[in-house]
């Protein structure tokens, strides 16, 4: 757990523990130091008390002995010079003052009598320094080690009334004395003489402690001045003061004062314990306070975090209520504002993402979603979902000629009309460009057709925009769920396919035909394979002759490209040229065709067959500024005069960008290449326009030729007037799609210059075409063409 709460608690505990530990250590150290100092003080005070006690005792003893020595009877006894009397008097008087030892000493220092069995009799007094001290001061007291015990000796003269002898009394320093010291100082006291047989002479300690003290003192050795040491007695530490006494006999008697450290420490221990207990209480209190504080901070934070998670999930509904006025309250307030701002912005983004900015209609994304949603509903209700896709005809031209602003206004207006036409529940969307889509719920197919017709009707009224009146038509594709598709994506694709069908067939609307989709799949496959067709040498050229109607001689051969597809077999240009145009591969194919055709034609001309070859140019080729140069290069490479090449261009190709196309055409014309207008009559080009084109030939569209009958039809009128028009403009006129003798005869009568079609020959591969030419020449086709009807294509 690494929450804020835990961190705060850890931090508090850590800081407090450190602080309390520091205090405890400081108290302990200071206490210990104070305790040690006070022990030392106690010991030194003790030693002074001891000194004082012993000194006082010495004085009292000396007074007592002096009084004794002046006792008349005692003096009389001493004066009697009878040793027995003297000894018994000594004993008697020693008892009076509780002396353990007594001596009578002559002024010259010889022991005259003693209380101890006479062993010192006649010998010099064992502590002569005491005698000289006494001689100087009239008396003396001193500590001596005597008979293995510590004594205080007192010597006073016996006055008669002049000093006649010395009397010495010895008082042992015994338990009584030490106990007295202890009662005054609370210190244990001992007397220590390392030189003695039993060094620890007297002590207030217990027996066990005495033994330990003795053994440890032995290691310390004697001291000349006061010294302290720490020793262990009975596993308790004791501080010991060694206090040497000034002795009369030079022996190293030392007073030992002992203080139990443990005992001295007890009050400090108690204090420490109290502080520790208080610290513990403080710590617990602090932890509780920290937990409460942290909870006070973290619980609103938890709520904010939960709120943030809600927002992350996209739920902007819930608001937080914080009455706190502190920083957290402010944060919550800011957070709430942010939540609202995000909600608004997301709404805005959603609208932008799902709607078309121009028309305000749903865009492709939203449309797709709604379709998918509706399909789910329709599945449940077993109802239909209808979809119409509409593409405006000629919108690009409108945009180009009247401007984008106009185009945009038109789109907005169309959107509005669609919306007005349809029910509220239906969806109208703009998918992009001039493409609109409509989705509606339907009970049957008739409803779909009804909707399509209503849309068509809505567009009939011309649009009046900025003073310009314009008519707009659209191609509509209809697809239905579940009859045409099971899901939204497929439904949209199929509506799209149906729309292209409508456009292609110049229909207002088309319903999706099952199977069309597979066709378009094939288109896609072809599109992807087209790229490799040239490299794999899958393309081939077929040639179809054009016959001079007057002479019957073949003068032109139109090169037609074929694709030997490995799967689909021979494909006609209609099937793959639009794809090549879409995919941008057309230039490559055009160049390939040009090279092949010019090469063939060069060969034929070289072999004596005089022919002009015709090659179709795509609209896109007219945007290729390099093309004229490329063609000139090819011609000179092969050695074919430019006049032997005819380039066929459709009207609509020129119309894509008339100015640019015109420049290319003029360039080609300038290089000597012949130009022909293909499929004449299907486009919308004006005669004025045609007049400006630098062309040499006019090819009447085969749709006018195919049904050419003798009976007076519109077609004959069109063909005749076209031929006349062409001739008037100085152009040669060619009719294609000649499939029967009747047409041939009509064309001949109308004065058409050249004819092309299955009636003459179908397109043939180069070798066969070559063979056909040879046969035609030998069979006299050259004089007057009377072709035998062949199989029509």
């Amino acid at each position, binding site marked *: 757990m690494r929450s804020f709460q835990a961190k705060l608690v850890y931090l508090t505990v850590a800081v407090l523990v450190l602080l309390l530990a520091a205090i405890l250590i400081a108290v302990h150290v200071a206490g210990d130091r104070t305790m040690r100092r006070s022990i030392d003080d106690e010991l030194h005070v003790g030693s002074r008390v001891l000194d004082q006690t012993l000194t006082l005792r010495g004085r009292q003893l000396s007074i007592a002995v002096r009084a004794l020595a002046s006792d*008349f009877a005692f*003096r009389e006894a001493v*004066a009697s010079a009878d040793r027995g009397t003297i000894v018994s008097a000594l004993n008697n008087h020693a008892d009076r003052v509780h002396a353990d030892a007594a001596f009578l000493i002559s002024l010259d220092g010889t022991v005259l009598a003693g209380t101890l069995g006479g062993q010192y009799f006649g010998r010099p007094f064992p502590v002569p320094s005491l005698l000289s001290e006494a001689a100087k001061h009239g008396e003396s007291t001193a500590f001596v080690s005597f008979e293995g015990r510590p004594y205080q000796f007192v010597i006073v003269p016996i*006055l*008669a*009334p002049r000093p006649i002898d010395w009397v010495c009394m010895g008082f042992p320093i015994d338990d009584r004395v030490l106990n007295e010291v202890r009662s005054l100082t609370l210190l244990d006291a001992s007397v220590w003489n390392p030189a003695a047989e039993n060094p620890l002479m007297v002590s207030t300690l217990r027996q066990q402690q005495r033994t330990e003290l003795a053994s440890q003192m032995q290691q310390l050795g004697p001291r000349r001045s006061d010294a302290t040491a720490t020793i262990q007695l009975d596993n308790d530490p004791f501080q010991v003061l060694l206090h040497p006494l000034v002795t009369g006999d030079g022996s190293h008697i030392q007073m030992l004062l002992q203080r139990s450290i443990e005992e001295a420490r007890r009050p400090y221990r108690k204090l420490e314990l109290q502080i520790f207990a208080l610290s513990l209480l403080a710590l617990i209190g602090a932890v509780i306070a920290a937990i409460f504080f942290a909870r006070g901070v973290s619980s609103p934070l938890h709520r904010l975090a939960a709120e943030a998670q809600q927002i992350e999930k996209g739920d902007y509904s819930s608001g937080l209520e914080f009455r706190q006025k502190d920083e957290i309250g402010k944060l919550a307030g800011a957070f709430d504002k942010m939540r609202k701002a995000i909600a608004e912005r997301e709404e805005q983004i959603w609208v932008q993402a799902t709607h078309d900015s121009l028309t305000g209609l749903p865009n492709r994304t939203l449309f797709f979603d709604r379709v998918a949603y509706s399909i789910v509903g329709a599945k449940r209700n077993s109802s239909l979902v209808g979809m119409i896709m509409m593409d405006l005809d000629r919108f690009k031209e409108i945009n180009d000629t009247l401007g984008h602003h106009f185009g945009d206004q038109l789109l907005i207006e169309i959107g509005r009309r669609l919306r007005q036409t349809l029910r509220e529940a239906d969806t109208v969307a703009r998918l992009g460009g001039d493409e609109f889509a409509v989705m509606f719920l339907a009970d049957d197919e008739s409803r779909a057709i009804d909707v399509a017709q209503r849309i068509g009707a809505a567009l009939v009224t011309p649009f009046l925009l900025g003073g310009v009146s314009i008519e707009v038509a659209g191609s509509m594709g209809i697809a239905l769920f579940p009859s045409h598709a099971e899901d939204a994506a497929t439904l949209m694709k199929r509506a799209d396919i149906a729309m292209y069908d409508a456009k292609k067939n110049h229909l207002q609307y088309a319903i999706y035909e099952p199977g069309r989709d597979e066709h378009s799949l094939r288109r896609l496959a072809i599109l992807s394979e087209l790229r490799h067709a040239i490299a794999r040498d899958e393309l081939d050229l077929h040639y179809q002759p054009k016959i001079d109607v007057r002479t019957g001689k073949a003068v032109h051969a139109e090169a037609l490209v074929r694709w030997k597809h490995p799967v689909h077999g021979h494909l006609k240009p209609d099937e793959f040229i639009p794809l090549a145009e879409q995919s941008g591969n057309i230039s490559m194919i055009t160049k390939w065709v040009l090279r092949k055709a010019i090469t063939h034609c060069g060969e034929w001309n070289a072999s004596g067959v005089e022919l002009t070859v015709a090659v179709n140019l795509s609209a896109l080729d007219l945007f290729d500024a390099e093309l004229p140069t490329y063609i000139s290069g090819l011609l000179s490479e092969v050695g074919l005069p430019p006049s032997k090449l005819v380039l066929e261009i459709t009207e609509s190709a020129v119309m894509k960008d008339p100015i640019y196309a015109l420049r290319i055409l003029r360039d080609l014309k300038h290089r000597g290449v012949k130009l022909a207008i293909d499929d004449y009559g299907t486009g919308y080009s004006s005669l004025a326009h045609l007049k400006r084109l630098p062309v040499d030939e006019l090819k009447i569209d085969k749709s006018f030729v195919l049904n050419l009958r003798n009976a007076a039809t519109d077609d004959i009128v069109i063909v005749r007037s076209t031929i006349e028009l062409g001739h008037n403009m100085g152009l040669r006129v060619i009719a294609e799609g000649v499939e029967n003798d009747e047409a041939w005869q009509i064309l001949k009568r109308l004065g058409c210059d050249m004819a092309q079609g299955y009636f003459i020959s179908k397109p043939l591969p180069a070798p066969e075409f070559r063979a056909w030419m040879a046969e035609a020449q030998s069979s006299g086709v050259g004089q007057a063409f009377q072709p035998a009807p062949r199989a029509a294509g």
Partner: protein
Amino acid sequence: MTRTLPLLLLLLGPLARAATVNVTVRDARGGAVNDAVVYAVPEGRELPLAKKSAIMDQKNRMFVPHVLPVQTGTSVRFPNSDDIRHQVYSFSSAKQFQIPLYKGTPANPVVFDRAGVVSLGCSIHDRMTAYVVVVDTPYFATTDRKGRGAISSVGAGKYSLRVWYPDMTTEPAPVPLTLAASDNQELVVTVRK
């Protein structure tokens, strides 16, 4: 001393024209030694015991005089001139005695029949000390404050001059002395003190 002088004069009266020895006792530093007893002991002849008497008075809790030289055999009376009682004693080997607490003059004097220094004390007044210096000669004197003592009426002959003084530790060597009639000799004795 004033009392003994007429007594001595009385004794030596027949020996007219006798010699006088003036002795000055000094210590090592030349200071006068007061209360020293100087006495001349005749050589080669025994003198008969004196049938004399002397007085050691007690006044104001003091023995008077402090030093009393007497010839061997002299009886000394110890009158008590104070109005309190005294108990005079001696533990000296030359003469041990005790006069229990008394007032006035005791009936019997104490006879000092052996030569030597007798240290006197009072059992109830430790400060009271005095010496009776018992010598075997009638020729003696006590030095005054100037350390001078005059031994008068000494007959011609050979003597050894001796000195004693209180607190003496070692007796100074006797000074041999030969006196003629009417001789006046001046002597200075230096003692270690």
